[in-house]
């Protein structure tokens, strides 16, 4: 991105004070130092605007700091009262006397549902975005774009109810089929003929975040300069090759970024997961078995009937989710950064 180095900003700020009179003239633009005309405050306006944006940016940090401080503050009592090991205990009984709770199973469930959801959703979302931007006829494309946006609007409780009442029963067949034929893969070993599993929750999450990732990816793909697409096509690239040489590399940071939004939502989703998952507190790789729970869903489940320690414990789990999101983003950033480094020098 183009930017003026700080030196110029300094020059602008100093500009207001300096009074170098311009070599007079009839042209309004005669003054180079910004003190000459009625619109002399351009430099000041720039400074104000810049500082407004900077203040907003710092305000965001303050907000996050406030949230984090609040989480930590409210979590400490509960963590102190905990008789289990917060990191290794699988059960979650913070309201019992004495309280015993640990994040292990919840964290595991959060990661695995979000991971499976991403594995399903991101390729499909990129597929949808490509379909809309590259494959579909123009008029159809804008209609489809609209539908995708619309689907992003379905409230998560609806996805949850749909997942519980419609999808779960439908998924029973697929689940038992997977166990029958792929049961040798440990992941698919157990299925108890119940459609409520980590897998189904992941599918619901995937469907939920699909429109988000697809909508943003579509925007990004639309921005790929046609010069690049044409360059690829003129080299005799098939449509797919054109996508691979021109569209995907250009759009990659944007897609990663969109995926991060989707991931954030997948990890933070409360009600939909709470409705679909059977909420058991154990670590199990059996993604088809009726088991599993996530941090966010557990907060939704536990909040209403939690006592003080219980609430502190739930807030502590929220803090963990916060930190996990942070870690995931560090990794994603590292991936984008490698790309940017290359592009940055190209700018």
């Amino acid at each position: 991105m183009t930017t003026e180095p700080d030196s110029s900003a300094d020059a602008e700020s100093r500009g207001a004070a300096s009074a170098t009179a311009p070599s007079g003239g009839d042209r309004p633009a005669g003054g180079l130092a910004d003190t000459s005309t009625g619109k002399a405050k351009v430099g000041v306006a720039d400074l104000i605007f810049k500082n407004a944006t900077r203040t907003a940016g710092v305000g965001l940090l303050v907000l996050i700091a406030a949230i984090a401080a609040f989480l930590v503050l409210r979590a400490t009592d509960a963590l102190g009262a905990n008789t289990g090991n917060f990191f290794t205990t699988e059960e979650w009984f913070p309201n019992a006397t004495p309280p015993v709770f640990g994040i292990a199973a919840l964290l595991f469930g959060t990661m695995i549902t979000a991971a499976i959801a991403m594995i399903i959703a991101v390729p499909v979302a990129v597929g949808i975005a490509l379909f809309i931007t590259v494959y579909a006829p123009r008029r159809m494309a804008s209609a489809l774009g609209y539908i995708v946006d619309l689907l992003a609007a379905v409230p998560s409780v609806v996805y949850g109810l749909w997942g519980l009442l419609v999808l779960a029963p439908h998924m029973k067949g697929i689940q038992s089929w997977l166990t029958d034929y792929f049961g040798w893969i440990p992941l698919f070993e157990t299925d108890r003929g119940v459609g409520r599993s980590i897998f189904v929750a992941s599918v619901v999450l995937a469907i939920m975040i699909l429109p988000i990732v697809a909508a943003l990816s579509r925007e990004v793909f639309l921005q790929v300069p046609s010069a690049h697409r044409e360059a690829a096509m003129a080299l005799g690239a098939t449509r797919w090759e054109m996508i691979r040489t021109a569209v995907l590399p250009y759009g990659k940071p944007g897609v990663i970024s969109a995926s991060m939004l989707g991931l954030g939502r997948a990890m933070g989703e409360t009600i939909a997961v709470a409705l679909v998952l059977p909420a058991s507190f154990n670590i199990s790789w059996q993604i088809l078995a009726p088991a599993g729970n996530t941090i966010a869903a557990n907060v939704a489940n536990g909040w209403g009937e939690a006592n003080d320690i219980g609430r502190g414990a739930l807030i502590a789990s929220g803090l963990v989710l916060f930190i996990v999101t942070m870690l995931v983003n560090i990794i994603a950033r590292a991936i984008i950064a490698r790309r940017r480094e290359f592009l940055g020098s190209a700018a």
Partner: protein
Amino acid sequence: MKTATVPGSAVAGGEDRLQLRGRVLPRWVPLAAAAGAVVLTVLIYLVTSISSRIQFLLLVAVFFILAMTVPSTLVEGARRARDRFATNLVYAAFLLAVIPLLAVLVNVIEKGARRLRPGFFTHSMNGIGARDVGGGIYHAIIGTVEQVALASLLAVPFGLLVAIYLVEYGRGRVSRVISFFVDVLTGLPSIIAGLFILAFWILALHQGFSGFAGALALTVLMIPIVVRSAEEMLKLVPDELREASYALGVARWRTILKVVVPTALPGIVTGVMLAVARVAGEIAPLLLTVFGTNLINANPFSGEQSALPLYIYSQAGQPQQAAVDRAWAAALVLIVIIMLLNFIARLIAGRSRL
């Protein structure tokens, strides 16, 4: 000079005629492959004991893609086959995604339309007992529209400013840190946002439940989405345009507001709509901040309000069918409202000029 003999290459040496046609699979092949895939799947269904419809479609798709790839590789060469494979995959991805998504929509429409009637929009839930079939969502619509509008009013300018800072001014540590924490904020579970506002606004500052408190919680959730998407879109505005504007002697801030932002506007609007869509369906943060009510309260700054997601959630959990019906109808209305907002925003974005 021309001796490259890459298979499928048009410049294959020794041939007099240009290979501009390549060998293309006859038209009937895709049809046959589709038919074959269906037949094969039906056979599998007859032989084994599976019955899922979703799975049926998945299997047909897989078989079709396989059935197309093999002859395509043989006849048309690897590159075309790969292209076909990718095309089929993209189409399949699209269909596979659209089917469940449409299923959700159809489901909501079907169940929701059953209960929709004019009175539903004009009445609150005041005095509706557990057994009663009447009542409406007027109070909830007011609440949702006001809360989401307030949240947008706070989050969009703020988020846009942050995005502008990150893209246009941000250099060095501070902006990297901000940008990073924006991502972190996207993962904030919504209930934590509600808790935060509860602790900060309601308990610490002694404000009561209100639509505005809910809007504050929604704002926290909207900000990162707005920032993220606006940032992405601003980055895509070519520097040439900025330079063109600077060269006209246009100040930086005007360049940003009048050239950069309008260029990125359609994308930004999409992001804002996604943010609106996301928060308009939130339950948990509202539960703790706007509280909910059966009565109409048009003032978002004082007293409990209702909201469509709260309404849906509480009605859906009731044992009576009448309540569950109301929940689906309200869900349908919520979707339609967001769709309308989306539509209006797009109209505005499409119009905007210098």
